[in-house]
């Protein structure tokens, strides 16, 4: 990345394009994790990349290029969330919340079925692993889950790792 950055700063357009692509896929992933809407996430990631490319030549990176670029993305995401909140408040009186709910339209039914089958398989195989995964996916905090399950945070992460590995294996090969 450093080499790429040096070349881009020296005027290499191809290197600049590479940086753009490199950041875009990552920014999109980060944004989607928070916003859940694929299209909006892509827009935000692109906006952040454009801002980065517009400023990186003149910016002095006190904390390094990566953290600085990440900061740009976080700012864009923050702005979007703030804006969406305001819009939701305005629209809520008109009962039109669904229009900005951000539900993804292109849900892969096959994948959905497979995912649920896998969770069921993990649950049948080891209910504790399944519980950790399920509680995590339901959005409980780590200490809440530890309390519910009667385990320490160390044990929790071990179980989480194993549960997640089982899920991954099941999604790839269909078996636990």
């Amino acid at each position, binding site marked *: 990345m450093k080499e790429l950055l040096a070349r881009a700063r020296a005027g290499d357009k191809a290197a600049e394009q590479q940086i753009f692509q490199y950041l875009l896929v990552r920014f999109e992933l980060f944004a989607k994790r928070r916003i859940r809407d694929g299209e909006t996430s892509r827009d935000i990631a692109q906006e952040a990349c454009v801002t980065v490319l517009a400023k990186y030549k003149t910016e002095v990176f006190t904390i390094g290029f990566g953290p600085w670029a990440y900061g740009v993305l976080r700012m864009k995401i923050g702005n979007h969330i703030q804006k969406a909140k305001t819009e939701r408040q305005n629209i809520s009186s008109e009962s039109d919340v669904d229009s900005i709910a951000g539900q993804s339209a292109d*849900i892969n039914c096959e994948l959905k079925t497979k995912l649920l089958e896998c969770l069921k398989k993990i649950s049948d195989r080891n209910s504790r692993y399944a519980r950790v995964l399920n509680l995590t996916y339901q959005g409980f905090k780590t200490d809440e889950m530890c309390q519910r399950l009667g385990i*320490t945070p160390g044990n929790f992460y071990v179980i989480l790792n194993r549960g997640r590995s089982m899920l991954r294996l099941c999604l790839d090969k269909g078996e636990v």
Partner: protein
Amino acid sequence: MAKCTEPGTGELLHAYEVGALSEADVERFEIHLLHCKDCFEQVRDFQQKAGLLFEDDEVKEAVRRIDRADWKRDSPTSKLKRYLWPHSPFIFKPAVAYFLVLLLIGPAYLGLRQGDPDHITEFRTVDLTGVRSTEDQVLRISGEPWSKVRFWIGNPDSSSEYHLTVVCSETGDTVLAVDDFTGFDEYGLGEILLYVRKLSPGRYRLTIGSSGGGTAPETIVYSFAVRE
């Protein structure tokens, strides 16, 4: 596949994927993802497949259903354990259990020991029977506080009472006097208990004689020494 560039931060991978990290750790890990190709590929791959767990309402509801089923399947014992010890570290539980067992069983065990006839303290016995008259046997003050002294008379009269005296040869002090001793067995052996700690070092005489008429034997004298 390339290896993680920062294994310390890379350990957060799985927790990040399932959304179990604090916001500060998420930031730390995402900055790591900007540099680490290996972690990034793993996260992207997993998110493409498991992203529905966060996004789709139907999947979320199914997860809740599975979770409730798992919760119901838990045994009442494990639920009780979690209720009683929600946060205790794993190693602590056996320690508590062990302590409770000791607390419950310990006093009972000690009580049994005290009531156990086999556990009665055995006194040191000094046998004077082989050293009748002038030879000395030795009682040690530094040993057990009580010592048993065994002696013998030829044919004890079971109808007679005997008087026993233990007298210090040097000072003439009587340290024990029994007028009605009848404790000889069928072989003529008798025993007395002496509290040795109260005796001064020196020579002592044990005199056994009949306290009445009848066929009582002559007076018998045993000699023994008491030393530190």
